[in-house]
């Protein structure tokens, strides 16, 4: 190639507004353009950007699993996979920072990764979804679906005739009472019951809240109900705020959407809640616990010497250990608790409604269970331990960032105090 062509190609790669990375199956980076480096450096720091999997381990540990699980010599490993990089962001209402990653195998041990910042698109999608819901609400009213108007405390102010037809309850019997008397508690993801106060708080914050689940008619018959709670825009005064609650009698959805929910909210390897879902739940529970004056605690745990274990026994063994720890964590999560994989060998257990003392006991039990388990490898059984940091909302400045920061700091102290221990103060 002529020198001037070479120079132009180089200039083109330097200026390309899209991240391009060439790597091998271990993640070692051969070539990388500046746009890709712009995204990787803040994630990994200057010490971590020579290996793509190490650089993304904290935010998207599944990338390595995708590559390891891809047996063919050629082909697309993942396309537009979303990496959420904003856990612990300062501005809760701010736009999310999301990277899109595509991985293509072009020959055995030769991979190309692309990275692009899709934060603006994700925010746009969110706003569109919100607008969609608003439009649906309007159409629902036109089509005369069951509609309740409720006030800030969940007291029914009005009910239309479709409501009576759908549920069998007379308007006069429900007006003036709480909607909780006639509707079940909403089950979110099949695990977190939300009181009407929680739902109203979410609708106030986001403008709307959508959920579905079993409801019971006045005659005891069950039906699958989609509910949309919308904060009505006309309220000028905060205290006068009213909400529309639309109820739709719909066929029970099949397995597919549940699979999708599973895919979007679970960590690929361990089945624990993923980082993105954890972030959402953390913020939602923070709002709920704070508004109700209830405690909320967080445990962050990190497996001890995990890198050495991986180096000595290989990634498949490391993965087996992560799965075992996740199973223990999921078993030990209390009713509203959420056990999540934050990245690499770091997990979190969010414990709403629990004091720091109760939570510390929970962490101590989990520590003993992890220390007591062994994982079989050819010719040996290996033991692992984990270090724990616990914190409670009451110790923070009121933000979930600070809760994470305090738990993290204590985890760090546990590591430096000799590992395999819980630090909660």
């Amino acid at each position, binding site marked *: 190639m002529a020198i001037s062509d070479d*120079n132009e190609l*180089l*200039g083109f*790669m*330097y*200026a390309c*507004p899209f991240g391009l990375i060439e790597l091998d199956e271990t993640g070692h*980076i*051969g*070539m*990388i*353009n*500046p*746009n*890709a*480096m*712009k995204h990787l*450096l*803040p994630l990994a720091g*200057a*010490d971590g*950007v*020579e290996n793509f999997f190490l650089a993304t381990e904290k935010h998207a540990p599944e990338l390595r699993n995708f590559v390891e699980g891809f047996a063919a010599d050629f082909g697309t490993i993942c396309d537009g996979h979303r990496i959420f990089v904003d856990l612990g962001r300062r501005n809760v209402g701010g736009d999310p920072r999301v990277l899109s990653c595509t991985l293509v195998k072009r020959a055995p041990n030769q991979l190309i990764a692309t990275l692009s910042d899709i934060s603006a698109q994700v925010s746009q999608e969110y706003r569109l979804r919100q607008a969609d819901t608003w439009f649906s609400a309007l159409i629902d009213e036109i089509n005369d679906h069951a509609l309740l108007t409720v006030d800030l405390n969940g007291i029914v102010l009005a009910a239309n005739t479709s409501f009576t037809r759908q549920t069998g309850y007379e308007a006069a019997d429900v007006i003036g009472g709480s909607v909780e008397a006639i509707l079940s508690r909403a089950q979110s993801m099949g695990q977190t019951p939300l009181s009407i106060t929680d739902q109203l708080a979410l609708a106030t914050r986001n403008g709307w809240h959508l959920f579905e689940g079993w409801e019971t008619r006045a005659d005891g018959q069950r039906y699958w109900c989609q509910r949309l709670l919308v904060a009505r825009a006309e309220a000028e005064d905060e205290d006068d705020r009213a909400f529309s609650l639309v109820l739709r009698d719909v066929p029970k959805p099949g397995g597919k959407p549940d699979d999708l929910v599973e895919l979007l909210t679970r960590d690929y390897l361990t089945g624990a809640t993923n980082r993105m879902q954890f972030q959402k739940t953390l913020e939602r529970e923070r709002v709920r616990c704070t508004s109700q004056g209830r405690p909320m605690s967080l445990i962050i745990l990190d497996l001890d010497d995990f890198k050495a274990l991986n180096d000595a026994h290989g990634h498949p063994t490391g993965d087996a250990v992560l799965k075992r720890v996740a199973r223990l964590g999921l078993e030990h999560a209390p009713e509203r608790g959420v056990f999540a994989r934050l990245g690499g060998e770091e997990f979190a257990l969010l414990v709403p409604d629990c004091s720091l003392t109760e939570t510390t006991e929970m962490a101590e039990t989990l520590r003993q269970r992890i220390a007591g388990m062994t994982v079989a490898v050819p010719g040996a059984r290996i033991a692992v331990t984990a270090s724990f940091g616990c914190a409670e909302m009451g110790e923070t400045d009121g933000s979930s960032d600070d809760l994470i920061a305090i738990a993290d700091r204590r985890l760090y102290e546990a590591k430096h105090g000799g590992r395999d221990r819980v630090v909660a103060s």
Partner: protein
Amino acid sequence: MSAASQPTFETVQLIELEQMTHEACDALDFGVIGLRPDTRADVYNAAEQRLSGIDPALVIDAPFFSTIGQCMNNFMVAQRFEDEPDLDEIVPFVLTLRMRPTRVRLRLLQSRDVARRYVLVER
């Protein structure tokens, strides 16, 4: 100028860079990138050309952080020039010189008395 008094990556002062001739700047053994207040590049010395492999014609007068210097367009470099009117700091960094990840040290230089700001690169 004798070899002994040649300014180094760590010791060179912002004002020295401002007063330096093109030839002297090209004689330095570390990369020098000078940016005007609108972040367009107007200094790109010979050492930097050798490191990056880029023809200065592609760099000069282009908005640096949105073209050639994209990897510095984050809180680690570009944001610091925005936030700190007086800046003299060495940061470990990884550049993509000729598309290879390359560990370097950057020295960020800015003073409220001087319009031009500098990024020095030591491989």
